[in-house]
């Protein structure tokens, strides 16, 4: 994955403007890879996002935390235009997402332009969404061959390399139905990486997995983070957020309640809603741990 690392040797310090600094100031290195300003989104009159501001710098890992229904998945999908935003702006690498700004007048992008923007952004879904009629190898090769017009031989070599990277070098010819959930999700990660994205979005990548399969997926994500990939991760895995994230964002009710370094937000939350959410998560974790322990010592 040497070609996806950025020129910056280390991750930027996370000094972030709290609100509307001029997003169009294109000062190269300082410019965040993702900038969201006052993002608004409603479904049938139900406001899901009520003005989200977020900056993600190159090489950063940002975890979005929060109870279900807080809008974190919707926000993630807006970055990739799987949902269209109603208000505010999102820029990825300086490009306005979904629209063309013509002297203040916005124009919708054509389907083709939208597809071009999405190429640069990899996405991993909660339910994997692998193509079931293709083998693992074909899944990974599909987009480079069809979208980037990479030659088949080259795409195959690269796909095998990526499958190796996610620990599935021995299963190129398996169909998704023949793989476990954790293996499927790792193929899905390889598939997204095959497009050499600037940014990876993870939508609760471990929520559909059996507990014993979560670790293998998180390990792959951790390696990706270590290689300098810019990642936005919606997750309930507090351990992952605490250890891997450069920045965590706690959302509730369509707003950002609290954000900062993981050790501040997770270990020392300031806001009441953050505290109660984390307490609930911890209680669940303890329960799971207790279950695991009782399993380890079966009755004789």
């Amino acid at each position, binding site marked *: 994955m040497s070609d996806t690392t950025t020129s910056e040797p280390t991750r930027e310090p996370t000094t972030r403007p709290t609100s509307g600094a001029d997003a169009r100031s294109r000062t190269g290195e300082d410019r965040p890879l993702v900038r969201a300003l006052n993002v608004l989104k409603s479904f049938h009159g139900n406001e899901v996002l009520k003005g989200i501001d977020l900056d993600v710098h190159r090489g950063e890992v940002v975890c979005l935390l929060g109870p279900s229904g807080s809008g974190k998945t919707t926000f993630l999908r807006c970055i990739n235009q799987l949902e269209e935003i109603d208000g505010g702006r999102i820029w990825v690498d300086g490009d306005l997402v979904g629209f063309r700004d013509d002297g203040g007048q916005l124009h919708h992008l054509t*389907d083709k332009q939208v597809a071009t923007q999405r190429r640069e952004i990899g996405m991993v879904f909660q339910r994997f969404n692998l193509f079931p009629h293709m083998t693992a190898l074909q899944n990974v090769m599909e987009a480079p061959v069809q979208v980037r017009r990479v030659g088949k031989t080259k795409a195959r070599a690269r796909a095998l390399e990526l499958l190796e990277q996610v620990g599935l070098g021995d299963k190129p010819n398996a*169909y998704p139905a023949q793989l476990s959930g954790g293996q499927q999700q790792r193929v899905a990660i390889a598939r997204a990486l095959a497009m050499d994205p600037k940014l990876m979005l993870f939508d609760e990548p471990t929520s559909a997995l059996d507990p014993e399969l979560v670790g293998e997926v998180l390990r792959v994500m951790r390696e990706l983070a270590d290689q300098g990939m810019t990642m936005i991760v919606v997750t309930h895995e507090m351990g992952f957020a605490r250890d891997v994230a450069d920045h965590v964002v706690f959302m509730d009710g369509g707003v950002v309640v609290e954000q900062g370094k993981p050790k501040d937000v997770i270990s020392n939350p300031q806001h009441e809603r953050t505290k109660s959410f984390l307490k609930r998560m911890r209680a669940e974790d303890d329960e799971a741990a207790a279950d695991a322990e009782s399993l380890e010592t079966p009755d004789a």
Partner: protein
Amino acid sequence: MTTPTTDDRPGLIEARPVRHPGRWVALAVIIVLVAMLISSFITNERWGFSKALEIMNQKPVLEGLWKGTIVGTIGSMAIGIVGGVIIAILRLSQNPVLRGVSFVYTWFFRGIPRLVLLAMIGSGIGFLYANLDFGIPFGKQLASLMGLSSDFTFFTLDVNQFSSSLLAGIIGLGLSEAAYMAEIARAGILSVDKGQNEAAAALGMNRGQSMRRIVLPQAMRVIVPPTGNETIAMVKDTSLLSAIPIITELFYQTRAIGTRTLQIMPSFVAVTAWYLLVGSVLMVGQYFLEKRFGRGFGTGAPNKRFARPAGAGGA
């Protein structure tokens, strides 16, 4: 594997199966009925099986079978399937005009009986439009307006001659079939999980690529079984070609021979046997097609270990 049968620990199960007296009664009744039927075949000379076999092998009958039934079915189903998929895609398009066109097409061709449609193509179209000119729309009017000698017509089709040909009949059946296939294809496309489209979109594939590479191959799994049904129905509906009228058609020819030689019943037996034979061959073909498009869905995958729908993450 040890199976201790000592002590109190229960060993291997040797239970008596549940009796199914109903099955034996049913079998006895069916055997008697079949025996009666076979005995009637032998004793009732009016069946005329040897005559039927003769009729089956007559040259006009074989020609009718080949041109009318087999070529007719293949041709009309090819038009029907391709047309049906296109109409289904139009129906699901984001363009409201195309959606409307697709709706009206289905409404029209599903609404009129094939017999009526074919009769109309055979005699009606040629009466209304004796010639079909292919050229620039309103070419004649434009030419006279501009005072040109040319009328912008590139070639002309004699409709009266064309409309009574086998090709016209195949097109007629195909257009009608497309309306039904459109509904089948639409159901197939809608059956594919919407996460598949999202995954394709997230990879930067456009709508066409996503439809062609991701959605349609999966929709085929749902489309193939009812299409097999439609094909077998079409084999039988080719007998309607005689309404055009096209006489190189299986039923028309067998019946003609039957009437001419006063072998009415043997001719019916002959035509029934041919339809059953063609239908049987198609059923075998359908089995292999279903296997092919079931790839990756447990049934078709080699060494299946997890028999759950993939892509949906087993949920």
